[in-house]
């Protein structure tokens, strides 16, 4: 088993490894390097394929390695029917996408970078679906958001791409935070940090008073990732990305992460009123909105993007519907959708690549020049439309089987499903038939069949959609049944076949197809109607997003202006006021004032002399006629303190104090010579009194704190320890130095790091040339090189 675990771990990291190598491989072999890079996902795919028999028999493959044992964190995976199906989709479609990208972006100077991002995403997505621990799930979840950001913004010189990338990152990133909060809730409520253990605590979870809060937070994560209304707007905008990205991330895999999460949580959090209201509601609205929005588009990719949104809505609706068949329908539809939508996106890219346009109104008659593409498109569209023999048909039969019950709620959702499915069929046929049928239309580029690299993907995916429908027994045994059982939390055999049997579901299917074909024949009128309808509705959440972002920017500018006015005296004043308050408020509030010490009687003459020297230094500072004198006078006081340290046996401290004091004076003086200051201090009297009050308060605060701390009982524990062991363990007689370099050496390492960074920062500040030097700006000296 240990070997198998190591191989699985390797397979989980193979995409990352390939991502690192991608730029070099592409540089060496050009676009043909994608054949080599596709080996990584292919090997992972084959490895996961070996788990199929075990999982099909109801087994679960687990494994992992300790990560941070002291925190009980482990890097562990958990493969049941649900995660294995996802893993196979990710690596399988991923293999085809890597090949497709090689053809689609042939000759692109950034192909290596592109494949690097794609493979990084693949690794992240693979990690997401196999993760067992919450933390791992969250980390991978965020990684998919970040790689999606990189891929949408791949063409970063266009502003639209940058905006879309940022929008996707903000929306899914916010959702990620919501997910994190939800996972922390789950952890606090159950004490469990692993998905595999969560199943055992479902009942307690559902009865918890925090159930609803946790559910809403988790839904926040799932709905943003899976583009549910009203967070859907980022998904169509994400079509700015190159087509392989749209096919892979934004239809087949990443957007299904939210659905994955819901399916994963279904056995634990499902079957409650909240679950069965929220999910179908949001899913249903998303389905209808997506389907209607898809009709109005004329860009192949945008049409597909909105149907993806609609399909995700359908999946969420089914997951939350609450009947046993709904789960089976969701599972079948998810697999079917990944296959046909991935294929259709690749077809759209292929048409764009060969004909030079994606505008459906400018395409036609390509069937004779692109026969393979046409067949692939047709097969995928038939599956999408849910016609017999195809996997999509099984899914749709199962959907109607699940929904058609007779009560009002079921009837409502049946209607929603019919309208949604019908419109999706329209869009599917528009994408797959319109460019290929009819008279030949002259396109910007002279179209001909794409290269093998590009038609392989759509052909394989579309073909699988047909094979899965015909050999439904095999598909159910190895994929549908284990996955549905994992989602339902109990054995759930799927046995629907592609042979039509009379009944309500078939009738509803016929109604759907009839409705779809009717709309398809009137597509131009339907589109015009939608355009008018949307114009009547006005701005959608996409504009709202812009308003929110610009409002946020304005707010942060205002806040920054307020707390950072750019005048150093305000910063310094604020800092010292807070210091004084921190020092003075607690002793008064808690009555912790020190006792007034007795007048010392045993102070020797020379000690008095030193104290006098310090006081003289202070008066010299106050009476100084110009700034330079004040700085040097401050040095007098500092040296006096150093002598006091020396007299009381703190030689190291005194030594350091001498040097720091010297360097402070030198550096302060140097800073002063560089600033254009008036040599004298021209503060008005009121300002002087105010500043003096702050200074005296700080001084008083420190005095009180020092007196209080010396009056308490002295805990000699550490002193004894260091005195006893300094020589024995660390071979040093100077305890101070031994503490610095040995006992607390790691501390010192951090401190010298800070010293170095301070030096770099000061150096950078000194070198900054002021563009508009402000006369009479008072600037205090930088850090005086004191020990941090």
């Amino acid at each position, binding site marked *: 088993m240990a070997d198998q675990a190591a191989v699985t771990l390797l397979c989980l990291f193979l995409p990352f490894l390939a991502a690192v190598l991608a730029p070099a491989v592409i540089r060496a072999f050009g676009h043909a390097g994608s054949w080599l890079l596709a080996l990584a996902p292919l090997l992972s795919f084959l490895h996961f394929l070996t788990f199929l028999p075990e999982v099909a028999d109801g087994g679960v493959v687990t494994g992992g390695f300790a990560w941070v044992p002291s925190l009980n964190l482990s890097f562990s995976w958990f493969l049941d029917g649900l995660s294995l199906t996802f893993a196979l989709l990710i690596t399988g479609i991923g293999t085809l996408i890597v090949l497709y990208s090689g053809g689609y972006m042939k000759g692109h100077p950034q192909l290596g970078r592109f494949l690097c991002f794609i493979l990084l995403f693949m690794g992240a997505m693979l990690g997401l679906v196999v993760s067992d621990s919450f933390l791992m799930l969250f980390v991978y979840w965020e990684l998919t958001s970040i790689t999606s950001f990189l891929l949408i913004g791949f063409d970063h010189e266009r502003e639209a791409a940058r905006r879309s990338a940022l929008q996707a990152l903000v929306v899914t990133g916010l959702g990620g935070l919501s997910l994190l909060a939800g996972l922390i809730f789950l952890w606090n409520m159950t004490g469990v940090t692993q998905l595999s253990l969560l199943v055992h605590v479902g009942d307690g979870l559902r009865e918890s008073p925090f159930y609803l809060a946790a559910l809403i937070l988790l839904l926040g994560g799932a709905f943003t990732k899976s583009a549910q209304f009203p967070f859907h707007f980022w998904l169509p905008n994400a079509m700015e990305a190159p087509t392989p990205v749209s096919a892979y991330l934004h239809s087949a895999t990443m957007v299904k992460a939210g659905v994955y999460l819901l399916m994963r949580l279904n056995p634990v959090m499902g079957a409650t009123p909240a679950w069965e209201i929220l999910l179908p509601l949001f899913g249903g609205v998303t389905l209808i909105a997506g389907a209607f929005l898809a009709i109005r588009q004329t860009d192949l990719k945008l049409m597909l993007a909105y149907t993806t949104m609609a399909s995700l809505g359908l999946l969420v609706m089914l997951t939350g519907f609450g009947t046993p068949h709904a789960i089976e329908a969701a599972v079948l539809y998810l697999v079917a959708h990944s296959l046909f939508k991935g294929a259709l996106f690749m077809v759209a890219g292929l048409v764009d690549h060969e004909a030079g346009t994606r505008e459906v109104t400018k395409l036609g008659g390509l069937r004779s020049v692109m026969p393979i593409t046409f067949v692939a498109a047709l097969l995928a569209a038939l599956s999408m439309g849910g016609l017999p023999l195809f996997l999509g048909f099984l899914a749709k039969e199962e959907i109607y089987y699940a929904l058609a019950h007779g009560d009002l709620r079921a009837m409502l959702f049946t209607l929603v499903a019919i309208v949604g499915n019908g419109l999706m069929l329209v869009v599917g046929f528009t994408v797959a038939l319109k460019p290929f049928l009819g008279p030949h239309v002259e396109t910007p580029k002279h179209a001909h069949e794409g290269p093998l690299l590009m038609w392989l993907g759509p052909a394989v995916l579309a073909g699988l959609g047909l094979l899965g429908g015909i050999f439904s027994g095999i598909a159910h045994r190895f994929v549908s049944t284990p996955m549905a059982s994992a989602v339902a939390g109990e054995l759930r055999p799927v046995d629907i076949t592609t042979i039509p049997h009379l009944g309500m579901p078939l009738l509803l299917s016929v109604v759907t197809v009839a409705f779809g074909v009717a709309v398809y024949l009137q597509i131009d009128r339907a589109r015009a109607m939608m355009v008018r309808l949307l114009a009547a509705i006005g701005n959608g959440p996409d504009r709202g997003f812009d308003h929110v972002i610009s409002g946020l920017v304005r707010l942060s500018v205002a806040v920054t202006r307020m707390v950072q006015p750019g005048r150093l005296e305000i910063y310094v004043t604020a800092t010292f006021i807070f210091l004084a308050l921190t020092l003075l408020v607690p002793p008064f509030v808690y009555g912790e004032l020190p006792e007034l010490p007795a007048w010392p009687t045993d102070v020797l003459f020379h000690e008095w002399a030193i104290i006098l020297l310090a006081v003289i230094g202070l008066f010299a500072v106050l009476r100084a006629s110009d700034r330079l004198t004040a700085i040097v006078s401050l040095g007098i006081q500092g040296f006096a303190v150093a002598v006091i340290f020396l007299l009381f046996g703190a030689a190291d401290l005194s*030594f350091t104090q001498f040097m720091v004091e010297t360097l402070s004076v030198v550096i302060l003086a140097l800073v002063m010579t560089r600033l254009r200051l008036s040599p004298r201090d021209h503060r008005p009297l009121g300002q002087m009194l105010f500043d003096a009050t702050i200074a005296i308060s700080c001084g008083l605060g420190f005095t009180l704190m020092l007196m209080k701390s010396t009056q308490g009982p002295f805990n000699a524990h550490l002193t004894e320890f260091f005195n006893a062991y300094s020589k024995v363990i660390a071979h040093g007689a100077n305890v101070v130095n031994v503490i*610095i370099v040995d006992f607390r050496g790691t501390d010192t390492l951090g401190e010298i790091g800070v*010293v170095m960074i301070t030096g770099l920062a000061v150096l950078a500040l000194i070198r900054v040339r002021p563009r508009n030097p402000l006369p009479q700006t008072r600037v205090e000296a930088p850090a005086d*090189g004191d020990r941090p």
Partner: protein
Amino acid sequence: MNTLILRTVAPPITALMLVFSVFVLLRGHNEPGGGFIGGLIAASALAIYGIAYGVSAVRRAIRFHPMAIAGFGLLVATLSGFVSVFVGVPFMTGLWIYPRIFGVELPLATVISFDIGVYFVVLGSIASIALALEEREFD
């Protein structure tokens, strides 16, 4: 400030202070001293030399950019901490060897090289601040 007096005494004072800083650094383990204070003394020495003879003279004399010296120090200190990892004890554990050189037993340890690293970081950082401030023109 480049008076004749300062220009005359600056070289011997600088030299003395540098020697003294090394002395303070090395004796630090048993007597008052150590890398931190040693580095401060060396930085002051360079500052004095700079005041007397100008910054470019100091930069020529120390050959390396002071920040490079600080970086070297940080590297030495970090590597000293890592030595112990290779013999299987935790990071930053002090290791001692006692080679006999000319018949005298000389205790050497990773804590000494660590302290040398501290010395260079402090010297380099403070000197680069002081020199940059002394410079009238930007280089």
